């Protein structure tokens, strides 16, 4: 409690800060709102609203190239997020629960992908995959995405593991649970929300990537962002609007899911 408690709010409130916060939110959302709004526009124009229609969505769903790219993106994100989550979980268990020599170095390696600018990752991967003879395409995309997703999956998983009382595992041992049963019955179920958050974060980060995918995708393994980018050569068409709005919808679904997980967690 504040000593000057009669109007303690005044102390924390600074003039204009609330206004700035409102401006920030408007600044972040206005473009997205307009994008979605114009995607329902009946006319070809993207500057004048000519009535509501779903025709551009119809065109997007009829477009096999977009469908293929979307499928590639989702498949890639699911595989990369899953692989990254499994590896990150193993790493988190070792880092949080065990004595690891040179822990600082291991930690630095785990976080390394976060420190590398995306464009550097992109061209380094391009150089690597084309010069070791692995070639470009879906396989290389999976490997590259898995790699940069690891730290994103690792963060929520370690956070969850660190906040878990180690006495729970000790108690399970005391109550005759062998190591693998301790893991299966205590550690894993309690870690589950962290695993879900980690997986979702990795999934969205993979889906978000454009530059790495554009360097590595070969013919037939184009991802949705890479395809949308190629559509931009014709300018911002209503189809671009519609497919972009669908990506906004996908993000919203992921956000809601992770929000529900967070609520359950607390």
């Amino acid at each position, binding site marked *: 409690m504040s*000593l*000057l408690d009669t109007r303690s709010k005044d*102390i*924390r409130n*600074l003039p204009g*800060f609330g206004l*700035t*916060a409102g*401006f*920030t*939110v408007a600044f*972040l959302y*206005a*473009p*997205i709102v*307009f*994008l979605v709004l114009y995607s329902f526009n009946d006319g070809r124009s*993207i*500057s004048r609203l000519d009535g509501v229609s779903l025709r551009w969505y119809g065109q997007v769903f009829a477009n096999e190239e977009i469908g293929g790219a979307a499928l590639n993106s989702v498949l890639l994100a699911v595989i990369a997020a899953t692989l990254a989550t*499994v*590896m990150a979980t*193993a*790493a988190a*268990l*070792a*880092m949080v629960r*065990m*004595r*690891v020599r040179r822990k600082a170095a*291991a930690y630095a*390696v785990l976080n*390394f992908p976060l*420190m*590398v*600018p995306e*464009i*550097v990752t992109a*061209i*380094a*991967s391009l*150089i*690597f995959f*084309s010069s070791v003879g692995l070639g470009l395409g879906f396989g290389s995309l999976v490997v590259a995405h898995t*790699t940069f997703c*690891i730290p994103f999956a690792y963060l929520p998983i370690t956070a969850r593991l660190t906040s878990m009382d180690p006495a729970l595992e000790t108690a399970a041992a005391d109550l005759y649970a062998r190591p693998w049963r301790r893991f299966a019955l205590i550690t894993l179920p309690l870690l589950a929300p962290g695993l879900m958050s980690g997986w979702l974060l990795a999934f*969205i980060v993979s*889906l*978000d990537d454009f*530059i790495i995918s554009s*360097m590595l995708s070969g013919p037939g393994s184009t991802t949705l*962002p890479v395809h*949308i*980018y190629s559509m*931009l050569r014709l300018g*911002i068409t209503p189809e671009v609007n519609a497919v*972009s709005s669908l*990506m*906004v919808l996908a993000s*919203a679904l992921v*956000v809601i899911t992770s929000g529900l997980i967070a609520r359950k967690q607390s």
Partner: protein
Amino acid sequence: MKLHRILLAPSLGTILIFMALPIAITTLFSVLTPAQYGGVIWEPSAEAYIRLLFERDIFDDTLTFNADYLQILGRSVLQAGIATVLCLIIGLPTAWFIATRPAGQKSLWLMLVTVPYWVNLLVRTIALLLILRDEGPINGTLQSMGLTDGPLPLAYNNFAIGLGLVSSFLPFMILPLYAAIERFDFSLLEAAYDLHANRRKAFFAVVLPILRPGLIAGGLLVFIPGIGSYLAPDILGGGKTLMLGNLIGMQFQGSRNWPFGAALSTILMAVTLVALFIVARRAAREDA
């Protein structure tokens, strides 16, 4: 083998082989000779780094100083720097405001500012272009209200790029600042007022120094991806003004000069690591 090694091997191995090793190879490529259609010839050459500063005459091989690439490098640093400062100017009050809300509202506000980050960056950049364009809603409104005669040049320039960088990375500034303000002991502010500081003085003498680690973290998280950013200059700049990220990308697409692209990204990587190293060392010193 010990269990902890088995658990750590896949993740560490993956990152070392598929991220660290490729970057090392990239550095190696930067001192090789470019092949005609991309790739390299295994002959050592410092040409990529020379090219950064000089132009080689095709006929007599003489070198003349050329600041074009340096300018791009400088512009990248400048744009990222301006974006960082702008993010700070609007991010700090926003983070402060959120951190001082009652518990229930806090998470709502926090969600509001982080949700856009979950939307694909390309989509967000396209959306920004959509409203900045000559035919976009901003210019439309201004003109229909009779405030401007013709469209204001909002898109396809450095202003648009800056705005794009700010909107891309603003959540990275807000989150660490929020975390720092959240931990801030507000009785310190009361103590400052009690000791005759006014609002402004208390803010600059007490609050800012304590929030410094958060400021530095947020600044780094905006500045580093800002320098190498690709989409904002490409889409919002209309390809007219290059930044480092685009210059690097070009070497692997149209121009096909791999060693030069490798040299540029080696420089970008080096700048990044040096910045991180300095900050980490300062943080370690302050902890001690």
